[in-house]
């Protein structure tokens, strides 16, 4: 039973109603001297309150651009050229700058990839956290400070009261990322967009932070978009996963289904290159070929030049095929027993 759904990433219309975030056919292009880079090209997905969506794909697939498009922080030469982003019933693509400012940090918070760069080096931690509260609420400074201190405590920073007075350079990378996470949690947002927040950190700290974010967001029913190029990181914590390739979602569905029965050859390749899923002694299966040049994508399926299943049919563009909320964009999907 397969059906072609245009522009909807396979999530059934019923679940769309309960969504706090609903992205439809989002297109974000960059006008570069070499041509128009279609970094995100027709992206659709839904997110319910408390749900964790893992957004996975190799470097340059458009994950960050997706995240920044949602909060409308795309800078020139980038521009959202089409699509809809509906957040709690509000349409964001047409929202005013002030409307967006009020949403950011208050209802939609972000955590960035590189903790070494996200905190202002010349401002103390308390300044940077208190301002995040006072940008949205008239709160006395002492109260805002207390909230900042509690948030630091929650993310596992020892002696938060003293650490508030420190400057970013006095923290390690892992600690800085905790500060960024604490800042994101300050206003109890409905949605956190975490853009590879643990990639720059070493593995043990990655795991700790992952577990903490998971716990904190579960407690407050916060929805999360967790961006990563590493499917194994996402598979441990996400409810749903969406795999991006060249600005599009090529496969999406519940984590267990996508991991255990990938349909798209690209997803299968990603899983094949996870060391834990390989039998001992077997060579890691890699996706061969180079990451695609967005200015020079093959006609039809963008993955065609790297795909083992490719044939004449793939010269046309595959639509989205859906089965039980598990969607894929491929003419010759992998079989479930593969």
């Amino acid at each position, binding site marked *: 039973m397969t059906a072609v759904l245009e522009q909807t990433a396979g999530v059934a219309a019923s679940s769309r109603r309960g969504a706090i975030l609903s992205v439809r056919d989002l297109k974000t292009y960059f006008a570069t001297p070499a041509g128009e880079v279609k970094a995100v090209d027709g992206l659709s997905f839904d997110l319910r309150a408390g749900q964790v969506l893992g957004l996975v794909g190799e470097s340059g697939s458009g994950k960050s651009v997706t995240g920044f498009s949602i909060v409308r922080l795309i800078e020139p030469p980038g521009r959202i050229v089409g699509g809809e982003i509906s957040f709690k019933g509000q349409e964001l693509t047409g929202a005013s700058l002030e409307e967006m400012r009020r949403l950011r940090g208050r209802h939609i918070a972000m955590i960035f990839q590189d903790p070494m760069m996200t905190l202002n080096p010349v401002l103390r931690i308390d300044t940077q956290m208190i301002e995040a509260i006072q940008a949205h609420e008239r709160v006395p400074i002492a109260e805002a400070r207390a909230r900042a201190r509690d948030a630091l405590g929650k993310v596992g920073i020892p002696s938060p009261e003293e650490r508030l007075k420190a400057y970013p*350079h006095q923290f390690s990378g892992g600690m800085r990322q905790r500060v960024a996470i604490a800042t994101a949690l300050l206003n109890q947002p409905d949605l956190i967009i975490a853009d590879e927040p643990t990639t720059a950190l070493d593995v043990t700290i990655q795991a700790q932070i992952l577990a903490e974010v998971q716990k904190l967001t579960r407690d407050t029913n916060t929805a999360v978009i967790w961006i990563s190029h590493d499917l194994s990181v996402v598979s441990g914590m996400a409810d749903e996963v969406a795999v991006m390739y060249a600005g599009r979602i090529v496969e999406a569905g519940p984590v267990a289904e996508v991991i255990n029965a990938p349909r798209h050859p690209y997803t299968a390749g990603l899983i094949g290159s996870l060391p834990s899923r390989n039998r001992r002694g077997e060579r890691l299966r890699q996706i061969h070929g180079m990451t695609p040049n967005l200015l020079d994508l093959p006609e039809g399926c963008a993955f065609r030049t790297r795909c083992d299943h490719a044939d004449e049919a793939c010269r046309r563009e595959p639509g989205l095929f859906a089965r039980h909320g598990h969607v894929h964009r491929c003419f010759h999907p992998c079989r479930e027993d593969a």
Partner: protein
Amino acid sequence: MPFWFIKRLFGALLIVFAMTIIVFVGVSVIGNPADILVPPDADQVERLRIVTALGLDQPLWKQYLSFIGNALHGDLGTSFVFGEPALKVILQRMPATFELAFSALILAILFGIPLGLYAGLRPHGLLSRSIMAGSILGFSLPTFWVGLMMIMLFAVQLGWLPSGGRGETVDVLGVRWSFLTADGLRHLILPALNLALFKISLVIRLTRAGVREVMPQEYIKFARAKGLTERRIISVHVLKNILIPIITVIGLEFGSLIAFAVVTETIFAWPGMGKLIIDSINSLDRPMIVAYLVIIVIFFTTINLIVDFLYTVLDPRVRLESGG
């Protein structure tokens, strides 16, 4: 006092010491003051008497040693022309120069930072381009020429402002100040602006470059993601970052403001140290020249020290690295 500061202090003293040697040798090369000071109709005996009285018969190294010995007691020599201690003569003229230099500094900040901010935030706008073009003029037009043009336009043609002098002054703590009276202020405007022009251009360019460097940083994007207003981002996140290099340069430039006041003071007949040194050079008043240069060197090194110190206050990273 932190160790690094003591180290810098020691270095500064060494520099001052080295400079006195250079200045002393340099000045003795310019010419023999006796040629100017001894009346042309004086006979050999009279000439010898004057030369001995001024200590010019001694070998240079002996003159230097006695200069250093006296300098350590706060005596930088006696002016040939005024017959008074050179230090005293200079100190009398110093407030006028300070007043002028400070006014120029304030103008540089007042105009330079807002214009530079604007040009940095809207780099492609017409106004920004005009600001930048203006700053290039400010850099390249010679101070004396601009000064003369200002006098021509505002003093001679329009008659709005006086062309020279300090105007009415008020005595505060035994020192005369122009900026406290309306008339004095009118006298101050043109020379201060003239002296400031180069610095305004410098601050504009520094500020603009700083803004352009800071705006694309991740922490600015993160500040936006927190929902901060653009106003707060610029006035706190951007400004605090670019203030560090600006303060450094403005501070370091204060010394050169005082040094360059020479030109402005001469054009606007502003009775400060700069005008004094020009007069002293004309009359080969060697102790005055040496004393002036030594004072200027001490100035520069002191300012450097203060700037270093301010730097550590402003930039938390420097504070940590230097262990203060």
